[in-house]
């Protein structure tokens, strides 16, 4: 990959990051009431507000306030949660692993199952099974995450008792080591599947379309004419190029998954950022809400950058646009 392309793409991050900071800053100042309430939450006392006022230079002109604000955030200072009595950065860092575990397993599962679904429907059209899979993916694509989660709890957890209903681990067990890993994995299954459902459908639809198009090309006919088994033709020759559109949407899917995780964490009582966000909304703890927003926005931007770099690596034509 040319170094110039990588450098150019990374430099494009600067205006994006600036714009995201600006959005946060503008919202703080557009919000009704004193900006100090947005920056410190609505639970502080007068002394604390005076402190925050001074820290963010709220008596100074707007441009210098913007500089102070951007400076604080870029040095990793996301403010303090008065409700929790701790820096927002620490609160977020504490909840981040649970959300990362949930979203990354959903990303992995949805990629694997989605591609498998797309290959299945693309290579087996005209059969009842393919139609059933197509209808299921259409419904999965349209179903709200909380419905999938609630139905999974009703059927698989409450009715059949296969999985735990809530939480990330069994509170009563004091398991350690492997047993603890299994316990968390057991709790992880339903939230992951519920979160992945819509993405499985999206990826499956995308890879279906790409694969159908790819299978009509000349190199596929050549591969078939060579007498290769159909399996090899599809998996080795068809799927390779059909993967490109799946890669291009990876960045956007990260955004979807993180948003979906908020809902799924509430449904399953998963102790991650989503639950933190919702409780912070309830207690009007705006510094935490803003901190999570900035983190998610940064993550999505970086995910999009990585996606573009992977795509350029897979398809050299992109680099020379």
């Amino acid at each position, binding site marked *: 990959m040319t170094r110039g392309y990588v450098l150019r793409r990374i430099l494009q991050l600067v*205006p*994006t990051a600036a*714009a*995201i900071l600006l*959005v*946060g800053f503008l*919202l*703080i100042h*557009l*919000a*009704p009431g004193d900006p100090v309430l*947005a920056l410190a939450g609505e639970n502080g006392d007068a002394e604390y507000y005076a402190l925050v006022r001074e820290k963010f230079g709220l008596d100074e002109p707007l441009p210098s306030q913007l500089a102070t604000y951007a400076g604080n955030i870029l040095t990793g200072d996301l403010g303090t949660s008065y409700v929790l009595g701790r820096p927002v950065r620490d609160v977020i860092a504490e909840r981040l692993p649970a959300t990362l575990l949930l979203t990354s397993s959903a990303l992995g599962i949805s990629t694997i199952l989605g591609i498998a679904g797309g290959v299945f429907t693309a290579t087996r059209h005209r059969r009842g099974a393919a139609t059933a899979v197509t209808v299921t993916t*259409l*419904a999965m*694509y*349209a*179903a*709200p*995450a*909380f*419905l999938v989660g*609630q*139905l999974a*709890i*009703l059927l698989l957890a*409450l009715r059949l008792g296969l999985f735990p209903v809530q939480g990330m681990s069994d509170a009563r067990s004091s398991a350690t080591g492997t047993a603890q890993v299994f316990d968390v994995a057991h709790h992880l299954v339903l939230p992951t599947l519920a979160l992945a459902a819509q993405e499985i459908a999206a990826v499956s639809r995308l890879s279906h379309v790409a694969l159908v198009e790819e299978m009509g090309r000349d190199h596929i006919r050549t591969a078939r004419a060579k007498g290769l088994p159909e399996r090899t033709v599809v998996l080795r020759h068809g799927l390779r190029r059909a993967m490109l559109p799946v890669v291009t949407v990876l960045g956007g899917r990260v*955004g979807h998954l*993180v*948003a*979906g995780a*908020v*809902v799924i964490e*509430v*449904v399953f009582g998963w102790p991650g950022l989503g639950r933190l*966000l*919702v409780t*912070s*909304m*309830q207690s*009007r703890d*705006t510094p935490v*809400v*803003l901190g*999570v*927003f900035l983190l*998610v*926005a940064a993550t*999505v*931007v970086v995910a*999009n950058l990585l996606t573009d770099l992977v795509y350029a690596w897979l398809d050299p034509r992109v680099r020379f646009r």
Partner: protein
Amino acid sequence: MSASADLGPGRPGPEGTRRRSPLWRRVLRSPRGGFGVVVTTLLVVLGALAPLLAPTDPFAIEGPPLSAPSRANPFGTDALGRDLLSGVIFGARTSLLVAVTVALIVVVIGAAVGLLAGYVGGWVDDVLMRVTELFQVLPRFFLALVVIAFFGPGIDRLVLVLGITSWPLLARVLRAETLSLREREFVEAAEVIGSSQRRIMLREILPNALPPGIALLGLVVAQVILIEASLGFLGLGDPDVTSWGALASEAQRFLRVAWWLSLFPGLAILLAVLGLNLLGDAVTDALSGRR
């Protein structure tokens, strides 16, 4: 929608109407398109006529609390004894209101950005496309959360946030359409006779560039309905109106005892989103088949 499909055969008259009607007939002929039209029409009718169609006021206490679906309450009742069927019907009204207003904002911004970028070109195009990319990356759901955190819950601000952040897809499609239309003879003819840029954009290009964008609107609006439902589920919707998301949020507390509270509002969302997706797909297919 189905009304325009019936216009064709009755009136053999001018070319225009005869060329238009096959599009809708093609949409209706595919099973997916037919399903999409039926469900979308149902959503519009339910939403528009909710006070006439709902058996009771969605906030009125009508029966015993948490009673299972029965003849009196086909969808059951909630913890306060309110009729869930009425709640679901009035929820359609909220979803419809959000969908239509967001769609209007999206069309206005998307069309303006797409037309200007595609027709004017040059640095205007560069700047507008950068801005479009930026809005595409902004996490809509979280931005809406921040706005609600700062401004309090309410449909007006929700519609504004979702509208202001949902136009990039439409702008891209309109830009691409404009780029290809710009080279066509009828646009060149308008340029030669000295029409103003504004007139060319609005009279010549916009009517031809808009249909593929409108077809995409179904998909955009479907996502907006899902986001609105998710916010309602988190208890961040407008507290003064019934919404599908808010109904499902109540279900979360009574999941062990009242499955119907979860199932019916959830299914309503699923159907509405599925219908809009299929309608959007079918119209896009029919339009691209035309060319």
